[in-house]
């Protein structure tokens, strides 16, 4: 093997190792939240109107690594909401595009797209609404899963 071939091999090796390191770094991609929101209770209405929706914007999420290209964040809940009760989620995204209010279901839906770099302390807003027909709904929970995905 001549010197030139050896040099090419060293370059490829460097590229390969860099690629492995780069990939390994993003494989550790992390999404985190600041905690659980306090209980949301629909307790009031204006006579003649549907019960008054309530919101909670006291928790945040962070994406602590940079994407290879972009990140998308999806959201879903572990089981359907009771009939007539709706849970919406809105994620702020200073380095991406928030889809806006999304009605949560058991099917994951995009809530943030096109995240170009990491971001911290982004506000999560939940809104709970109910129709009168929903009736009285006892205290219960849903687990919201936020998933960070690398996208082109």
């Amino acid at each position, binding site marked *: 093997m001549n010197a030139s071939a050896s040099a090419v091999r060293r370059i490829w090796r460097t590229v390969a190792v860099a690629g492995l390191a780069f990939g390994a770094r993003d494989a550790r991609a992390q999404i985190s939240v600041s905690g659980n929101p306090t209980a949301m209770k629909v307790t009031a209405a204006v006579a003649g109107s549907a019960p008054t929706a309530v919101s909670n914007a006291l928790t945040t999420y962070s994406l602590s690594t940079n994407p290879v290209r972009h990140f998308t964040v999806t959201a879903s809940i572990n089981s359907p909401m009771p009939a007539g009760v709706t849970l919406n989620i809105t994620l702020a995204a200073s380095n991406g595009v928030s889809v806006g209010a999304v009605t949560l279901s058991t099917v994951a839906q995009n809530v943030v797209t096109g995240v170009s770099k990491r971001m911290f302390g982004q506000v999560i807003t939940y809104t709970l609404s109910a129709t009168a027909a929903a*009736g009285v709904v006892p205290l219960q929970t849903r687990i919201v899963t936020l998933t960070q995905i690398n996208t082109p």
Partner: protein
Amino acid sequence: MSKSTNFLTIGALVAFAAANTASAQVTQTVTFQVTAINQIAVSGAPSLTINTAVAGSAPTAVTSAVSTWSVTTNQSTASITASIASAMPAGLTLSANLTAPAGAASTGLTALGTTAVNVVTGITKLNSAGLGLTYQLDATAAAGVVSSSTRVVTYTITGGV
């Protein structure tokens, strides 16, 4: 390119592809509840004056239909009761007639007294606005001339389960 170089190159591509599909998850627990909600409202300021009669008959009753009422309840079989704070003068009768929302029943024109009486029953899990509310004032000749007076009518939504 040597075998080792190919291996490393493929490794880099695999790592890059893995990075492109890598995902991470986090969960939050959301706790929620909807409590019993029962709201009723009325609008309008009705005024009723009896000032005529057909000769030979009692003074002619008057009605006012300028008011409306609205309701929201997420319970079943709720009722609306009505009462006035103090009794009407002798010979005068104040009545109310509330239009029922869908699925409920109105008791029709109902005389009001200091004891609450049902005016609408069977209201179940609905919100409805701008429902009709009509007042009627009746007087007997024996009531005589009655100076201007007011009564506060109290509507209460009750009994939902």
